[in-house]
């Protein structure tokens, strides 16, 4: 299977600070992809470059064989590459219903709006109870559900999640992990950044350790690793 996304030698950063150093990776060849690594080493920056929020200084990003570097975020969303950003800030004064309508804004997603809304409600029944409530009044877990729900409304062909369980209590976190597994079973390939390695091992087939803005280690299917080995990667080098 061809990778749905491949990042080739991307260098990117903010102003004069370079965060990503010639990073390369592939997604979709073996299934879901997990990214992990220490804080502040460029995982979010990489996702921002992929979704067009940040212009790389050099390198190529191929989505479905097409170089999307220089494309607008809107065009990238229009192609079906959907990114759920870290920290679920969302639209604080909009209702859940409004967020869902925005998720279906792109012409590609519009025809599937009703069908996707049903999917979201089935996946997160809690949201249906609070459909008209403002996002700012929701709990952290509910906000994360709205973030992911909004992304599903965009009819993703590839879904990127940046630390979906960040800051959630264990029970909500388990529920959310189960929902993410459901999404994956529904046929949407995922790229997930997570600190919870157990969750990544369960969800993904291929792992990348991102360190100092580059891939330090790639773990392909078959090369199963236990928790201890991964921890030593974190702290070892």
């Amino acid at each position, binding site marked *: 299977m061809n990778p749905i996304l491949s990042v080739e030698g991307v260098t990117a950063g903010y102003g004069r600070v370079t965060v990503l150093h010639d990073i390369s990776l592939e997604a979709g060849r073996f299934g879901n992809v997990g990214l992990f690594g220490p804080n502040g080493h460029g995982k979010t920056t990489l996702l921002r470059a992929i979704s067009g929020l940040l212009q790389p200084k050099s390198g190529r990003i191929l989505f479905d064989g097409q170089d999307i570097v220089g494309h607008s975020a809107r065009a990238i969303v229009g192609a079906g590459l959907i990114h759920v950003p870290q920290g679920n800030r969302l639209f604080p004064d909009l209702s859940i219903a409004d967020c869902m309508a*925005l998720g279906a804004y792109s012409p590609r997603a519009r025809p599937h709006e009703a069908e996707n809304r049903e999917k979201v409600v089935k996946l997160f029944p809690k949201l249906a109870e609070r459909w008209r409530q403002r996002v700012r009044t929701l709990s952290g877990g509910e906000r994360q559900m709205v973030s992911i729900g909004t992304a599903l409304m965009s009819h993703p062909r590839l879904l990127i999640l940046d630390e979906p369980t960040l800051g959630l209590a264990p029970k909500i976190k388990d529920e959310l992990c189960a929902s993410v597994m459901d999404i994956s079973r529904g046929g949407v390939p995922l790229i997930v950044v997570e600190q919870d390695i157990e969750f990544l091992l369960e969800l993904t087939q291929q792992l990348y350790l991102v360190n100092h803005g580059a891939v330090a280690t790639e773990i392909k299917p078959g090369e199963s690793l236990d928790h201890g080995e991964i921890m030593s990667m974190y702290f070892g080098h």
Partner: protein
Amino acid sequence: MSALAEILFGGLFQGSLYAMMAVGLALVWTTIGVFNFSHGVFMMLGAYIAWQLVELGLPAAVAFPIAVVVMAGVGWILQASVVRPLIGRPNIVLVVVITTLAAGSLIENGALTIWGPRSKQIPALITGNTTVGGVGVSLHQIAIIVITPLILAALCMFLNRTRLGLALRAVAQNEDASHLVGLNVTALYGLAFAIAASLAGLAGIFMGGYRFMSPVMGSDPLLKALIVVVFGGISSISGPIFAAYLIGFFEAACSYYFGLYWTPALLFGVLILTLMVRPEGIFASRSRGLA
């Protein structure tokens, strides 16, 4: 009786003009997070374009809508030239104050060069006078009092009931998230400016129908609109609307009881008090966002 009627009428009339101006200022603030100091110039330009079209022989019913549409284009162009290139700068609010002031001054002097300093007047929406509650008023002013709430209601409907309006409200709240659902953020910024400029242009046409126009006619309304948004809170579109009418009534009452001379001083007194007690404005919630 006639005192009440005079204050009521004066307040509704001034409030309408202030609301038309302030709403545009608030729209631009909530979507882009900048203050547009060429907003008063938009008002002047709308009036002069309408005047020019009427001079060319077009009937007012054609000239006025054309002027409003042209103003939408002017707003869009101004946004694209002196605001959009600066977006993302850390001190954007201050920088845009300067660039819009500069653009405004250029346009003002341009108008002076093209149309000259002589005062002009454009046709009233409706000619004639009547008396209401013992106070003599022009039909033009009554038309403004009736039309303005309709236009503002239409704007609120647009923002709250349509998908495009939803997109404008979204962009106001989170730019990155707006990009990530595929909104055309630059176009929405342009749209916010275009709507603001059209409303200001319309306010100019209203004003030019009962007062003499001059190239600096927009500066006092801009100041008043600033007071209105500071007073009402810049975080929403309904706050400034209520504040505009409140200030209209306040001014009307002040000038009735204390005379025109004292009105600005009293107004600023109220403004300073408001800022001390509720810095976010009297109708504001604590967040930035439309509707």
